[in-house]
Structure formats: C-alpha cells, structure tokens
C-alpha cells in the first residue's frame, strides 16, 4: 500500500477512533475497574477508593432485590423481543405487499418511532392509569371485566410475571416496533421477486411462501436484529424508569434501573458498577456471536 494511502486511511478513521476510545472503550474499562473498588461517593474523600476485589459482586448477589431484577430483566427481554419480532414480521409482510394506500400505512406504522420514549411513557401512563384509563372504561363497558385493572400498580405477581410487567413490556414493544418493521422490510426487499413467483408456480400458499421462502432468506437479517434487540433489552432503562420507577414492589425493576439508582440515588458507584458489570457480561456473550457474524461478512 502506498504511503499516502496509509496516511489518508489513518487520518480518516482517527476522529471516529478517538471518540470511540474516549467515550466507549475507556468508560467501559473504567466501569469494570470501579466494580473492584470501594467507591461510595459520600465517603470517597475520607476513605478514598481502596481495592476490595469481588466484594461488590458478592454484595449485589446477596441482595434479593437485585436477584429479582435479574429475573425481571430476563423476562422483560424475552417478552419484549419475541413480541416485537412477531408483530414486526407480520407488519413488514403487509407493508411489502402491493396495494393502494400502502405508503399511508407505512407512514402510520412509523409513527411511534417519532414518539420519544419519555413521551410514550407519559401517554401510556395516562392510558393505563387505573381510575381514568379509557382502556379500563371500554373493557368494563363491554362487560369483559368487573373491576378496573391496575395496569401499573397491581402488586399481585405470578412468579416473575405481573400485570405491571406486561404493561411496561407492551409499551416497550409499541415504541420499538417501527424500527423492527423497517429493518425487516429492508431485508424483505432484498429477496428477489422471482423466488415468490417460482414458489407460486409450484403451488405454494401464502403461509408456505412465508415458511419456505421468506423465513430462510430473512435468516441472517433476523439474526442480527435478534441480537441487537436482546442487547438493548438487557440494558433497558427509560420506559420502566419513567413509568413505574421499577415498582410496584420492584416488580418492573431492571438491572439498568437498579444500577442507576445505586449510583445516583445512593451514590454507591461501586455497587452500580458491579451490577452494570453483570449486564456487560450478559451482553458480552450475545455480542461475541454478533461480532463474529459481522466480521465473517467482511471476508466476502
């Protein structure tokens, strides 16, 4: 490679690399380091930040509240990801068909994308407000329920499942659906039309075409999407934090909220770092598969 080409390449990646290292790699490493220190912001000027080994991790694991958030996070991720992918698959199919008014439907489906999570949470908090919920009103009106559902405040839990957990998941799916639909639609459009025509000539029904043409060819796209969603799901914060603050009784708490509360309410950066270190490990496992896939694509 010519020298000026090399200089050009490094000059071009340098800004991105510097930002990536300063605001991505370095903070991650720093966070891992903090998780092995005592770092209590309220006492840091008297005690400093001594090395304590795995003490923070032990403390976190002995906290039943944290263990519950681990289970919650898992349930939330599985529900939200499977929900958003199945709805996304269906909608992207519908949007990929040719019919009048398709562009309008496309735009409508995209609408929640433009609604910031904070606003989404706010609207849904109102729609799911126990006493004034129009949803409760309609259900009652149609005689489907005889007392108001306490969407966000019901304390009854069946194992890790509870009404607030399901409500929060539904809001997350609502907010995340447009991205998934667009992502899948891009994948669908790369499938050559002639394959469907061939399948039709062979007598395949709509469902068979979906099963034998669409799904296998969408496989790689679905894989990437799945991993992205699982990773964002494991670190999910905003909607739960705003709508329920993790409550009632910790039922909708996630690891990310636990970590945030430890840091910015209890000022225990060490506990927070240990909790987020565990999120990092979980996502790291998913991440390895993702990167391998991306790099394999690079070899061409």
């Amino acid at each position, binding site marked *: 490679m010519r020298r000026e080409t090399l200089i050009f390449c490094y000059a071009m990646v340098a800004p991105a690399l510097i930002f990536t290292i300063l605001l991505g790699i370095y903070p991650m490493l720093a966070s891992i380091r903090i998780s092995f220190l005592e770092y209590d912001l309220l006492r840091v000027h008297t005690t400093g930040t001594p090395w304590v080994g795995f003490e923070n991790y032990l403390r976190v694991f002995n906290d039943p509240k944290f263990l519950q958030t681990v289970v919650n996070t898992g349930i939330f991720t599985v529900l939200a990801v499977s929900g958003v992918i199945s709805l996304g698959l269906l909608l992207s199919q519908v949007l990929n068909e040719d019919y009048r008014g398709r562009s309008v439907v496309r735009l409508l489906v995209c609408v929640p994308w433009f609604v910031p999570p904070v606003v989404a949470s706010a609207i849904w908090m109102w729609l799911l407000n126990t006493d004034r919920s129009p949803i409760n009103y309609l259900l009652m009106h149609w005689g489907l329920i005889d007392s108001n559902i306490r969407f966000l405040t019901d304390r009854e839990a069946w194992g890790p499942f509870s009404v607030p957990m399901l409500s929060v998941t539904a809001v997350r799916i609502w907010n995340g659906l447009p991205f998934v639909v667009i992502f899948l639609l891009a994948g669908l459009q790369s499938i050559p039309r002639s394959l469907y025509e061939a399948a039709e000539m062979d007598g395949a029904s709509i469902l068979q075409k979906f099963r034998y043409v669409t799904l296998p060819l969408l496989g790689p796209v679905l894989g990437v999407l799945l991993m992205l969603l699982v990773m964002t799901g*494991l670190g999910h*914060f905003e909607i739960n934090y705003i709508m329920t603050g993790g409550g009632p009784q910790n039922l909708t708490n996630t690891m990310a909220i636990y970590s945030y509360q430890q840091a910015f309410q209890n000022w225990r950066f060490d506990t927070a770092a240990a909790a987020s270190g565990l999120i990092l490990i979980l996502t790291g496992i998913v991440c390895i598969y993702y990167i391998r896939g991306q790099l394999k694509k690079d070899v061409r």
Partner: protein
Amino acid sequence: MSVSGVEHVNGKAGRRLLSSSRRDALTRIAVGVITALILIYILVPVFWMLKSSFQSALEIRANPPIWFPGEPTLKAYEDMDRLIPVWRYLWNSVVVSLIASVIATLIATAAAYVLARFRFPFATLILTLILVTQLIPPITRVFPVYTFIQSLGLLNTYTGLTLAYIGFSLPFAVLLLRGYFETSCPPELEEAAMVDGCSHFSAFWRIILPVSLPGMAAVGIFTFLNAWNDFLWASLLLNQGSMKTIQVGIGDFASEGGGVQYVNLFMAACVVATVPAVIMFLFVQRWLVGGLTAGSVK
C-alpha cells in the same frame, strides 16, 4: 396474484391451485384483521395525545372518556409555557441533537469509507473496537462518562452532552455507512476520480461525499432521533434549570405530578416534543427516495 389464470388450468393441478387460493383468502382475512388490531394499538396512543392537547383538563379526565374534543381549543398550547419552559427546552434539544448528528455523521462517513474500501493494517482491529462499543449497554458507561465529562468541566453545557451523543452515535453510524459504501457506492467512482487527477482526499470530498448524501441523510436522521429521544444521558449531563432537554423537562414535570393535574398542558408539551422528529423525517424522506447513484453505473 395466484388467482389469475386458474380457469385455464385443468384437472388436479387446477384444483390444487383453487384450494390454495381459498386457503390464501382465509390467510389474507386473518392477516387483515390482525393488522387492523395492531394499527389500533399503534395509533390510539398517538391519537390520544393529539386530541388531549386540544381539550381542557376536565374533559380529558371525564368518565366515560371523550374521544373527540367537544370544543377544540388551543388553550393548552398557549398556557403550557407558563408551567414548562417548552420552547427553551426544545431549543436545547434541537441544538444538541442537530450538532451531534451532523458531526457524528461526518466523522462516521470518513471512517466508514476507508473501512469499507481499504485493507490497511489494524483495519479489522479498529472495526472490532467500534463494533464492541456499539454493543456496550449505555448504563455500563454512565458513571465513567459522567465523571469524565465532569472532569472536563463540561457538566451542564451543550458541549458536554453533544460530545457524549457523538460518541454514542458513532459506532452504529459507522456500521450503517460502511454497509452503504459496500453496496451502494461503486469503487469505480473514486477510481475514475483518481485517474482524473484527484488525490484520495479530494476524491472523497468532491465525489464520494456528494454521491453518498442519501446514505448520510439516513444515518443523520438516525443519530438525530437517537439524541432527540434520549433521556438517560440528558438527565445526567444536562439537567439544571433552563438547560434541560425537552425529554428531561417532560420527564421531570411528569415525576413531579404535573402530568395529572395539568394533563392538557402536559399533552401539548408532549406533542411539541414529538413534532420536530416528524418534520425532520418528512424533510429528509425526499433524499432517501431520490436514489442519487442511479445512472452512474450500468
């Protein structure tokens, strides 16, 4: 589609086609019904927000719910500024998101271009680093970034939050644009430019950049929306008084209970917080569809 031509087909094959088209009709109906239900799920909350912003607080709270405002009023929009400094918050959000997305897109385009085109030493390592960064959950970076921005003295400044947003948007922007360069921007273009007398940089600046505007626009919107929608970082890095972003402003107002008492003002503020993203999208959609590369190759 599959129905056409059925009558010309005889015997077994014909019957099979017919029965499969009847099955298809059932599938279509089922899909149609489910789609309609999903559309209701998608649209009702947005409709609720919109219609509430034109009602009085009393009417919103009414039981049974009033779905269509009896006397639509703009009062909420006129009054909201007294309780929430919406316009100020909006300005904060626009400044930070716009600057962050423009800078991030430019930086990402430069990096993505060389990562897509050249095999230089450490290219794979750099790409891996960027990929890894994309996959670190934000929450694991919050505390060090918070202290880092604090140590730069940039807490509660536009610059601090903008820097943070650039850092977090970059990896995904690089990945998207790298894919764009590999599929939609033929290498012959810059080769032609080099033969025509360009250096690497002028080929990038004069040919590649203008040609990849559609891709950059798409990535730009994406990073803009990410920054615009963010609550976590803004709540930590820019949360004092009038410096709040609109998301933090709304979130704080809600958590102080204002969302219930002044629900009409609150819904109006929510509409205002949503509209810029929609405008942004509609504005750039034209470019996305344009397909500028059409005709350069083949």
